[in-house]
């Protein structure tokens, strides 16, 4: 399992209706291996719903999903779990287990095929990746919000799945750990993984992501590089704010301005 098979994820005509409300409408999207994609949009635009559908947690009312060229219906839940790791926006542990035991839960889809020492090594490596090793043995109820989030991220990374989906992974993190987190996801993508993140911070999205999907009212409003999506016109129309996009020292920068 240390070696993973790069894998693309395709959503075709995804629609989702919840409580008679259309949450997602005819979304076509493709996520390639080696690509870091941000899903952005205002509150209630459907980011979390789209990510849940992509992760196989929610069943879309219409449309289909495919991993490479296999439709997701032909993939068992157990196999899907070995290919796609998912971190929801909120994940409250029910029991006050040690941080390292929470991370080890990410290896559940592998069952007994991993021996104890390899499991321990993987858990340790994942905790190190998010700078959480020093509180590995602490009960999760004794961690701060940001520390818990880092432990959950280690749980996401521990299984080394080809597809990573995280819903606002940077919530509750301080600025240093947010940057560290985005760097970690960047490295994961550069190593050939398909990484999909829902983000609220557009400057982080501009700086680290290869591609941005802009959602509005359950529909796909725009898609492309940061430069093509984060234009003052589009951002103004969707978020209702003034903004600026510029290049500085060869690096894309998004700066939010006043309300319109």
């Amino acid at each position, binding site marked *: 399992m240390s070696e993973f098979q790069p894998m693309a994820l395709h959503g075709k005509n995804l629609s989702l209706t919840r409580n008679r409300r259309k949450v997602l409408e005819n979304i076509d999207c493709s996520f390639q291996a080696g690509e870091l994609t941000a899903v952005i949009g205002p509150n209630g635009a459907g980011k979390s719903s789209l990510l849940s559908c992509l992760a196989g*947690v929610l069943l879309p009312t219409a449309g289909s999903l495919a991993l490479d060229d296999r439709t997701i219906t032909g993939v068992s839940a157990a196999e899907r*779990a070995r290919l796609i790791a998912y*971190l929801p926006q909120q994940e409250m542990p029910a029991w006050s287990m040690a941080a390292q035991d929470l991370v*080890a839960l990410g290896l559940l889809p592998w*069952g007994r095929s991993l021996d104890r020492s390899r499991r*321990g090594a993987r858990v*340790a490596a994942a905790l190190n990746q998010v700078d959480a090793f020093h509180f590995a043995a602490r009960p999760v109820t004794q961690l701060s919000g940001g520390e818990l989030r880092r432990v959950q991220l280690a749980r996401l990374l521990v299984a080394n799945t080809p597809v990573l989906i995280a819903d606002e992974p940077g919530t509750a993190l301080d600025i240093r750990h947010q940057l560290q987190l985005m760097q970690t996801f960047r490295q994961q993508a550069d190593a050939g993984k398909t990484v999909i993140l829902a983000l609220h911070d557009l400057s982080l999205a501009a700086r680290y992501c290869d591609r941005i999907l802009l959602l509005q009212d359950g529909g796909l409003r725009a898609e492309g590089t940061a430069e093509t999506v984060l234009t003052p016109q589009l951002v103004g129309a969707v978020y209702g704010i003034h903004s600026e996009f510029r290049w500085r020292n060869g690096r894309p920068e998004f700066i939010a301005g006043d309300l319109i």
Partner: protein
Amino acid sequence: MRLNSYSRREPNLSNSHKFFFLLLACALPLALLAALASGPVKLDLWQAITSGWHSDNSDAVILWQLRLPRAALALLVGAALGMGGAAMQGMLRNPLAEPALLGVSSGAALAAILLLYYGAVSGEVALPLLAILGALLAVGSVWLLAGRGASATRLVLAGVAINAFLSALMALALNYAPSMFAMQEIVFWLLGSLANRGWDQVLLALPFMLVGAVMLVLSRNYLRALSLGESTAASLGFSGRRYPLLVLFGIAFAVGSSVAVAGTIGFIGLVVPHLMRPLVGQDPGRLLWASALAGALLLLLADILVLNTVGVQELRIGAVTAFIGAPFFFWLIVSGRREMSL
């Protein structure tokens, strides 16, 4: 170096926890001996054991045909209730959950009461079978009421609703009991007891308990994944109806068959998983085994207390466990308020 020191202490139990398990495992045979020595008649235990199963010696008959099946039943019922409670708490992600919460115990109890009420206790076999059916019906209607992919909250609400309905039916059955004798029988049965049980009851309950235990053990990884919530559990490969149904049926079989042979015995399913959880590193999977072991021990100890209490009426074991359980509940609330965790 950090990695090494880490993997040594990862995911295994610490030594003090292993010691506790060893203690628990040693306590069981000791408690069993104490239970066999307890009773109204003083036995020469050693002679009774050595004279064997088929002996006509009165001590041997008391030991092999009365005390041993009673102790075995205490162990089985305690294990089933402990494991059922652990599974229930894991499934509902709630440390206050108990099999009684989802109406499993009430369903079994009501079915048995109706049988006693109509006086159709022709065969001993009918009572346990009907109780298991009652547990299944109760848990099934909770499941239907909660609907597909129900959240824990909705499931608890459905359990409360079904439980309220079953209590109403039970009150009605008591109200229109045909005779004082029937009413007394029903009330005593509801209190729970291990008195006058023999190998018949053990053999009747055992297969159903085993089926329930197998179902629960098969769902241990689902319970582990569920400690991170329903969406995460789904993303870890535990999606759909299959796993929740496995847990629900497992609980119905284990707890329903216990209620059938011993009446309703409360609080074991609440107290035991609580006590064991810190010892298994809060792992809902390992908690199943630990709770079965500790539940067996606790109920056997409670029965030793019952056997050694002298009185006109036999002390009902359900009353004993309630006396253990109620203060525990208070302690839980007070400590929970202090930690602001409940």
